[in-house]
């Protein structure tokens, strides 16, 4: 009722006023008539009535005040807050800007977390979707056969069962050929995932994919825009896929990613083709237990296909980070954002506190005029709420700008593990508002409480003197800065450790020289390649072609490419040392021509290199393997066993290293001589000044050897670059955060000290008048700032201890307790604190007592 009246009064304020005028007029008339009845003349009766009524206007205003209750006064608060913020533009810009940065970073981070961890499968009811393989309990996994998939569709095991097989296809566009990822899917898959809609054209219908009608394709918006130039008449036109003409029937939005993040073309199948494979994706029925579904599926599979008698279905998620290291790095990133968010909120809080305490006179005046504490609090909170609203608007813009940046910074290996397109969406904007609310609560509540706390009675008197801050506000302001220093210090420790990791890793000893080396992986696909002599002949003529390319100086053949590209052998290795026990080791094995060592500049440190008389079991071991098997003894002439084989050591090569965050990636190795050309050999080329582009090599071999296929070609360095992507991203992000935090902290310290200096002008003036030197006054302020920074540093050191544990998966060759890292952090924080304190200190030292006394 009261609320209705309130709302009514807000909406129909004019009408309420008019109604009161009616009410007053009625009252006057009644009074006049009563006076006439008492025997007065009409004129006299009216005047008496008016006199008795008093001021109509005052009464009307009084009535309006009582009616204009909460909502309207809230509106007044907001208008007042807006005027206050407008009046202090610099403060408003600084505070709203920091809130926008905090909220925007938070939102962008949430978008990343959402895409990578919370919601990697952005389809309807993703918990019910699964990717299914058949397998034994011992670990072997095979794809589901088409017969089984069809049986599942007819059984009650799943709500839907569909197939999607990925493949790389070659698209011919004009004169060029590009390779892209595609998938062959059953037509029902789009309906199973969610309500997928095409941008143009239509989806597959059940008739698509029948033999003879398989030449229809769906194309992603990305492919349409990048490769086909957004051709408006694209749907209905035909494109060349793997040499076959196919009709485009529709364009899917770029947000749709399935079955892989990089799939851009879909072809239909109904699984009736010969030897066709299925890769099953299913949707569980929501009303059936998982175990029951899987039992039904097992029964149906065994009835449909005799080959699966020993197998049962195994369920996997469609996407998402499976690597714990990757998940950990995303968590660390999120933790960093939380710290930056807190630093920025603490900073805004400090600004608000300074501003509200500066306005204590105003609050005291209002309190003296009868405003309650609650009323003042509401006023103060209205200002921070308005700031937060500004921050939210700015934050959405910041997030909008940050999300594409994060897509560039996050390593592709992580991005490919999600089907979520990582775009700013409704969920993220909801988070923006949530962050806004948290920001206003974190940053606004405490200053509002302190700013409006006025000691009863003496408030006006004390405040009027404008002498010093209240002790509480002073304490809290410094505590806020100390917290900022602590958080910034924690972020800085993280940033230093991660940056040093990155530098260490990029400068780590690799044990070989890869500059100017390009490798080519071939497939000798002709009929002549079936016997060793034929393969050797092809290899010789391919080598002749490659040597004619511009700049090529050295050529070496191998199977397996260093670094980190050999054949992996896991198991027990036994040396011929008397009484030697088998050692469990993971090793890399390379099959190489003698000149490969020279090409990669891997020195043979003991024994000899390969000669043409060596057999496959004469091997060169790496230093690490030699010391594992024989310790310090000379291994030349010794042998070692692996399962049934025995290898004779003819030489020891320098160890090659593959720097990686994952210590398991860098394995010891040994080399076999290249006694036989395999059907998929690798060639390494060393060129000066640089090797020809991969495309040039492909083109040269395509014209000279049409049957030889280039499976991959590129520089060796790209392996290191890919491995460095994660530490580089981590270091870049951590450094950015640390710079944000440090800048905000410096600004916070600066504003707190400047404010303190303004409040203590009289004190400094008097000190100077009594003979204090400017140097002495400057020291007072500097000491103030440095004490706060020192406390923050001490707390930050404590904060940094759990951080070192969290960062372990991102560290390379450095620890959080590393003295150099700490020295860098301490020096940076100390210098920042000095710089931030210097200007307030100087302005305190320059105060002129004469001017101050005149002001009084």
């Amino acid at each position: 009722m009261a609320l209705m009246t309130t709302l009514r009064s807000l909406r129909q304020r004019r009408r309420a006023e008019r109604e009161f005028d009616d009410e007053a007029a009625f009252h006057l008339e009644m009074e006049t008539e009563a006076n006439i009845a008492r025997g007065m003349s009409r004129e006299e009766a009216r005047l008496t009535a008016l006199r008795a009524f008093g001021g109509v206007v005052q009464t009307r205003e009084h009535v309006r005040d009582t009616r204009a209750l909460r909502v309207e006064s809230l509106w007044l608060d907001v208008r007042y807050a807006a005027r206050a913020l407008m009046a202090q533009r610099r403060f408003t810009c600084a505070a709203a800007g920091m809130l926008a940065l905090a909220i925007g970073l938070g939102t962008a981070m949430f978008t990343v977390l959402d895409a990578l961890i919370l919601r990697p499968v952005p389809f309807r009811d993703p918990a019910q979707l699964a990717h299914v393989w058949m397998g034994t309990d011992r670990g072997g996994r095979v794809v589901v056969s088409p017969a089984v998939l069809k049986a599942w569709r007819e059984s009650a095991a799943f709500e839907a069962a569909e197939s999607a097989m990925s493949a790389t296809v070659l698209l011919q566009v004009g004169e060029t050929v590009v390779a892209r990822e595609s998938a062959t899917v059953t037509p029902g898959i789009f309906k199973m995932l969610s309500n997928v809609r095409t941008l143009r054209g239509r989806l597959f219908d059940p008739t698509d994919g029948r033999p003879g009608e398989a030449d229809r394709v769906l194309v992603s918006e990305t492919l349409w825009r990048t490769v086909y130039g957004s051709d408006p008449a694209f749907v209905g036109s035909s494109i060349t896929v793997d040499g076959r003409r196919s009709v485009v029937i529709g364009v899917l939005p770029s947000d749709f990613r399935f079955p892989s993040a990089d799939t851009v073309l879909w072809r239909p199948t109904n699984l009736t083709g010969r030897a066709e494979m299925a890769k099953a994706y299913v949707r569980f029925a929501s009303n059936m237990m998982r175990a029951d579904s899987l039992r039904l599926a097992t029964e149906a599979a065994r009835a449909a296909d005799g080959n699966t008698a020993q197998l049962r279905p195994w369920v996997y998620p469609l996407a998402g980070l499976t690597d714990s290291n990757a998940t950990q790095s995303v968590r660390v990133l999120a933790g960093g954002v939380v710290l930056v968010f807190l630093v920025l909120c603490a900073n805004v809080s400090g600004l608000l506190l300074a501003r509200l305490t500066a306005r204590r006179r105003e609050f005291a005046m209002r309190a003296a005029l009868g405003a309650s504490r609650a009323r003042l609090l509401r006023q103060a909170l209205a200002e921070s709420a308005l700031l937060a609203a500004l921050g939210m608007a700015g934050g959405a813009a910041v997030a909008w700008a940050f999300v594409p940046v994060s897509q560039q910074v996050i390593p592709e290996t992580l991005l490919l593990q999600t089907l979520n397109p990582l775009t700013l969406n409704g969920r993220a904007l909801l988070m923006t508002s949530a962050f806004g609310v948290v920001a206003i609560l974190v940053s606004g509540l405490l200053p509002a409480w302190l700013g409006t706390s006025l000691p009863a009675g003496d408030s006006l008197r004390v405040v009027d003197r404008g002498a010093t801050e209240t002790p509480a506000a002073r304490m809290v302001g410094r505590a806020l800065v100390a917290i900022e220093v602590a958080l910034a210090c924690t972020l800085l420790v993280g940033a230093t450790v991660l940056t040093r990791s990155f530098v260490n890793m990029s400068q780590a000893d690799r044990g070989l020289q890869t500059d100017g080396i390009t490798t080519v992986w071939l497939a000798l696909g002709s009929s002549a390649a079936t016997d060793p002599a034929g393969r050797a002949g092809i290899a010789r003529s391919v080598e002749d072609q490659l040597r004619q390319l511009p700049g090529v100086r050295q050529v070496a053949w191998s199977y397996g490419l260093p670094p980190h590209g050999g054949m992996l052998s896991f198991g027990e290795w036994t040396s011929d040392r008397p009484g030697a026990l088998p050692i469990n080791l993971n090793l890399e094995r390379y099959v190489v021509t003698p000149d490969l060592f020279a090409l990669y500049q891997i020195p043979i440190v003991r024994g000899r290199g390969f000669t043409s008389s060596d057999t496959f079991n004469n091997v060169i071991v790496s230093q690490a393997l030699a010391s594992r098997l024989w310790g310090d003894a000379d291994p030349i002439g010794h042998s070692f066993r692996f399962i049934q084989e025995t290898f004779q050591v003819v030489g020891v090569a320098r160890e090659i290293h593959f720097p990686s965050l994952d210590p398991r990636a860098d394995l010891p190795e040994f080399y076999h001589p290249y006694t036989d050309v395999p059907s998929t050999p690798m060639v390494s080329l060393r060129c000066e000044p640089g090797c020809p582009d991969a495309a040039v090599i492909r083109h040269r071999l395509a014209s000279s050897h049409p049957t030889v296929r280039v499976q991959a070609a590129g520089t060796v360095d790209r392996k290191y670059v890919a491995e460095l992507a994660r530490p580089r991203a981590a270091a870049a992000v951590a450094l950015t955060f640390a710079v944000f935090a440090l800048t905000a902290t410096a600004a916070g310290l600066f504003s707190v000290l400047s404010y303190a200096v303004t409040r203590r002008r009289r004190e400094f003036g008097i000190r100077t008048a009594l003979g204090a030197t400017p140097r002495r006054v400057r020291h007072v302020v500097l000491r103030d700032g440095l004490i706060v920074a020192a406390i923050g540093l001490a707390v930050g050191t404590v904060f940094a201890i759990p951080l070192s544990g969290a960062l372990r998966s991102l560290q390379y060759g450095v620890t959080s307790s590393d003295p150099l890292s700490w020295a860098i952090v301490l020096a940076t924080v100390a210098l920042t604190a000095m710089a931030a304190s210097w200007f307030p200190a100087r302005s305190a030292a320059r105060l002129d007592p004469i001017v101050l006394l005149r002001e009084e």
Partner: protein
Amino acid sequence: MPKTEYLQGALDLLILRTLALGANHGWGIQQRIRQVSGEALAVSQGSLYPALHRLEAAGLLSSEMSTSENNRKARIYSITAAGRRRLTVETEDWRQFTLAIRRLLQEG
């Protein structure tokens, strides 16, 4: 006509008591208070109307624009259930208060 100062609580009580007898407009309430108190209590319009609107905002009264007995537009106030409850409480408080005052005065 003697002017009597009284507490705001008393004014609320008088209004609620008057309206408990039947819905009325502002002027009617004022007249009724004056008559019943034997001209001893005069409520000025400047206090009456804000009080009426305040009580309405508090949900103790409700009002609507309608036509008065002499066919004029007037706002008619009536008491709500919450208003009646408040009246009972306030009446009891007032009774206790006046009793206390009377005892105090009789002592001397």
